[in-house]
């Protein structure tokens, strides 16, 4: 959810507290005392070990496991199967391509609907209208609530027999029945409405922060030049939001790739709502699991993520070097 990059924080140098036990005679060649070095080593070392063990080792292990068949029972039952898992995945698994497609649809919908809407709300709220705090809170509230809880609430809305919508429009009788959760033509869109509802608030806050950073003198200048509100936004404000747009794009891609909780609560990724993350979970979690196969799906997801993230990082670093 957060877009913080995981750079290890620079350890603050420990302030010399109390009288130093003994002076270091070698002069400035030893800036740090023994205690400082131990502190530094611990502060940098422990997170590094944890990071390597929990992120890198597991990532590399799952890449290795993607080329094996393993049911999780004893290490001697790991069998090398080469590219077999991937071949099966691309040809035999009837859920794989729909899952990829749904992840893509997820991204396209999030970028086309809630993102502009969030921007629109942010621009309106930025005008300091009355009750703006109230609106801000109302739109941001869905972001604060856990997605699993969001899923439960939306289920109450969509439940075909007793849900809010069907009860209101009378679509819960035999003959004219709308199955929001089960119908594969409907359920992805139903769940995307819930996802968009949440994403709008998220985008609104990001854009609001971006708008706060716009220099007021720019607005003044454009109004002096006789630009109307739309022209000011189009030609002056929006271009200054460029850095925010990049962040929004990356956040939205990440949201689309890690989409999971909402759908898992909604209908466990059944017909119509398959997602890569859910296929991974279904294959790996549980008794007599297919760890190799699940890892292969995870590798596909990793490759897609890298294909998106690497160009972004390259662009960011290039900018930094130029600066």
């Amino acid at each position: 959810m957060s877009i913080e990059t995981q750079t290890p924080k620079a350890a603050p140098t420990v302030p010399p507290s109390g009288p130093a036990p003994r002076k270091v005679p070698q002069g400035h060649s030893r800036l740090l005392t023994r205690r400082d070095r131990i502190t530094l080593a611990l502060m940098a070392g422990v997170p590094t070990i944890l990071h390597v063990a929990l992120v890198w080792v597991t990532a590399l292990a799952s890449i290795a496991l993607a080329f094996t068949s393993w049911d999780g029972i004893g290490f001697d039952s790991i069998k090398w199967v080469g590219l077999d898992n991937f071949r099966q995945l691309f040809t035999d698994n009837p859920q794989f391509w729909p899952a990829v497609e749904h992840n893509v649809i997820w991204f396209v919908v999030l970028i086309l609907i809630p993102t502009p809407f969030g921007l629109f709300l942010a621009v309106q709220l930025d005008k300091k209208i009355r009750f703006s705090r109230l609106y801000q809170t109302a739109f941001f509230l869905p972001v604060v609530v856990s997605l699993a809880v969001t899923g439960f609430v939306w289920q109450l809305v969509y439940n075909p027999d007793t849900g809010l919508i069907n009860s209101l429009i009378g679509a819960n009788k035999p003959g004219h029945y709308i199955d929001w959760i089960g119908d594969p033509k409907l359920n992805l869109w139903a769940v995307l409405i819930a996802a968009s509802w949440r994403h709008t608030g998220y985008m609104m806050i990001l854009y609001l922060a971006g708008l706060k950073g716009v220099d007021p003198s720019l607005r003044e200048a454009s109004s002096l030049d006789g630009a109307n509100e739309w022209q000011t936004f189009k030609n002056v404000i929006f271009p200054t939001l460029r850095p925010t747009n990049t962040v929004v794009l990356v956040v939205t891609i990440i949201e689309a790739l890690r989409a999971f909780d909402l759908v898992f609560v909604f209908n466990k990724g059944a017909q119509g709502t398959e997602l890569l993350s859910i296929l991974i979970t279904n294959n790996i979690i549980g008794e007599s699991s297919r760890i190799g196969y699940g890892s292969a799906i995870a590798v596909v997801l990793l490759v897609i993520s890298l294909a998106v993230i690497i160009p972004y990082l390259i662009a960011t670093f290039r900018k930094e070097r130029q600066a």
Partner: protein
Amino acid sequence: MQDLSPSGLSLPSPSRRSLLRGAGGAALLAGAGIPLLSACGGSGSSSDPKTVSLGSNQSDAVPKKAYGEIYTAFTKQSGITVKVNTKDHNTFQEQINSYLQGTPDDVFNWFAGYRMQFFAQKGLASPVDDVWEKIGGNFPDAMKKLSKGADGKYYFVPLTTYPWAVFYRKSVFQQHGYQVPTTWDELVALCKQMKKDGLVPIAFGDKDAWPAMGTFDQINFRLNGYDFHVELMAGKASWTDAKVKGVFDHWAELLPYHQDGFMGRTWQDAAQTLVAKKAGMYLLGTFVAQQFTNKADLDDLDFFAFPEINSAYGQDTVEAPTDGFMVSKSPKNKAGVTKLLEFLGTPEAEETYLKSDPSVVAASNKASTAAYSPLQKKAFEMISGAKTLTQFMDRDSRPDFTSTVMQPSLQKFLQNPKGVDSLLSSIERQKKTIFASS
């Protein structure tokens, strides 16, 4: 800051701290206690001969209490304490692999069928033939068959079971003058009549993806018999076999009479249509009775065995998922374990259990049925009279196959009953790779 509060509000902080300190101390003590205890054991044995540890997945209040009462009775009789480690039902299932490979309890709760055989075959369970020499007389042949691994040895001691059947309300059948159907044609005719009478013929909800497996199982063993069911579930028979196609053809014939919108409905919601007398029939396990909270409604509930399709097999097979116990690969207290399992295999143990949990029936045919409700009696007779018992698709087959292949495939069929041929070849391809993997 705490001084600002004049009341005792500042108290929780120090008391919580001391509580934590106490807990930490207790944990340290317990940690130290383990090696101490084992040192006391002496004579090579590394455990207390007076305790047996048991891993339980019975986390719900009713069964947890009911199991507890059996263990108390056992302790009274033998002087051996049962140390129960209860885990959440789903967590237990998800972790079973690593649990059995780590340091499992001596005995653990598990299910009969292929799911039991799988762990037996992997060497993660101990055979209990010596126990069965004592308790064999307490069980019908169908139960004995269920408790054996693929190698012919016993690995399982059953405790409770419940059948799957077609449930209906007596008053609804009386009101419309319906007869219980005993053949496929009668069933289809009844569905037509119910539709005419404004009822939903068959209540159905498949949101959780497993209820559809129950329908498949019933049609399959009525049409193709028990042996084919076993072969198909064990990955031996082919899913492209004309026999399997026949199952889906029959199912497609019945599908128009199923409740609309089943993909978004849970079994509980589907059961409510039966409670409300809006649906005529409902194919499910006897646990459907849990949804009948009103006593009068519950008394009105009845069921019949799924109708005959092929006269060669009649109605001789009953789907009866069975729960019971298995022994881990190297129990610390083998003698105690044997004693415990012998006790659990007695009719008395089952009667003790059923006193607290009347939603299931005893696996033993020797247990007294005096305290049973009419529904339980009927369920018990149905199981005792069965020639063969099946478990359920996900208990009779590899769970990875049923959850990753069969659940989505059956849902696909329900959405589009016409695309069966390509669906079946897809299932067969996926099945081959899964069953070949280990």
